């Protein structure tokens, strides 16, 4: 994978709600509003996983959403980063041990998926932006491996 520095100046984000309670989704919308304005870093919300560089998951993965989560992950072109927003995707949070929940996202995605966590219940918009910064660090590492 040959990456140049341009890549992390223009990250397009696709948002997947894998069964969240909507609190994190609202905080993500807050991150693109004029107060935080992520577009100044070149971060843009897109409507299709085919356009995305970052997949942003909110919520624990419910039984119904499991297949869709995997399918969206496969539809995204390489190179890609997964950003899990909120406690639910990390540990299933308040839905722990629920009969309707398939478990945290890292147990479902393929092993080579790179997952970054932005914790909080719900997350603060600053933490979402911090998660994207972590994605930049990961992409920098990808570049370092090649050179």
């Amino acid at each position: 994978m040959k990456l140049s520095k341009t890549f992390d100046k223009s990250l397009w984000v696709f948002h997947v709600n894998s069964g969240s309670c909507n609190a994190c989704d609202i905080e993500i919308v807050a991150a693109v509003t004029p107060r935080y304005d992520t577009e100044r870093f070149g971060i843009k919300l897109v409507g299709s996983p085919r356009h995305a560089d970052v997949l942003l998951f909110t919520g624990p993965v419910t039984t119904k959403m499991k297949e869709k989560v995997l399918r969206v992950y496969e539809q995204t072109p390489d190179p890609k980063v997964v950003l899990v927003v909120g406690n639910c995707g990390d540990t299933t949070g308040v839905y722990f041990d629920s009969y309707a929940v398939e478990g945290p996202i890292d147990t479902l995605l393929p092993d080579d998926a790179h997952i970054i966590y932005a914790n909080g219940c719900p997350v603060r918009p600053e933490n979402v932006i911090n998660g994207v910064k972590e994605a930049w660090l990961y992409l920098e590492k990808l570049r370092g491996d090649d050179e």
Partner: protein
Amino acid sequence: MVDAVVEWSIMLALVLLVSAIGIILGLAYKGFDRKITAMMQSRIGPPLRQPFRDVKKLFMKETIIPDSAVPWLFNAAPILALVASLVAFAYLPLGPFEPIMEGYGDLILLLYLLAIPAVAMAMGGLASGSPYATVGAQRELVLMISYELPLAVAAVTFAYNYNTFSIAEISSQPVWNTVGIVGAMGFILILAALVAVMPGELSKVPFDQAEAETELAEGLFVEYSGRNLGIFYIAEVVKMVFVGALFIALFFPYQLSNFIGLAGPTVPLIEMGLWAVLVDVAFFLFKLLIIIYIGVSLIRVAFARFQIDRANYFYWGPMAIIGLVGTLLVVLENTGI
């Protein structure tokens, strides 16, 4: 024979040069558009070179062709859209420069070249085998038949007024000097109709139903990724500059160098001084910025998306009537009633 070969190779080189300039200008103006939009929404906005980064990134990404797609059509559509937009530059007067292919094409050809990117997008959408893209393609075609009516009315009015379809002849004399007060009012109405056509032509809000990301998940482009999406991105920005340059050629073909006392376009290009050319090019770029600001950025920020049937009504109802009234006024002026 040798002369013809030399002439054609010069023409080819010029076309390639103009294409490169068109792509760079398009991406730069897209950067301006995004920055101005962000400032109007009291955001900081991306840097001006953000579109260049986006395109470079898209070319680095993996290009996926879905199993349900028709591969050759799916891959051909973005290239067709880009080529049609780039070829149009060869027939347009750009600033102080005459059209490169002068004498080979006219206003009617330009209207067809304007239509091809939209048709290519619809083709690509239908070929990608996704229900979202199919709905997007249908909307794009509906939108196309809608805005073609005011556009054709405007083209016919210009041809009637100048007795020619040649774009170079039309832009050699500003339209406001050829008519009296009644005709000028008619052309102001046609200008208004064409400003309303511009966002539809460029698939921008309020006429971006075909790629509405909130309802249709990017519509036409839903299955496009990587290089193909990058080519569509470039085609879109090139078309923006092309439509802006067409506006300038039709309505504002003024040159600044005459006003400030440099030998302007009244003499052949070779005899113009370097400063005169530079001033005219800078003035052309400034006019382009104003037109893109009004036709794309301002309208995009001020309005929300129409429903597709209302967009159709908007073009066939009010805008077509405004255009036809404008034509009537120009005809009244010219027949001297």
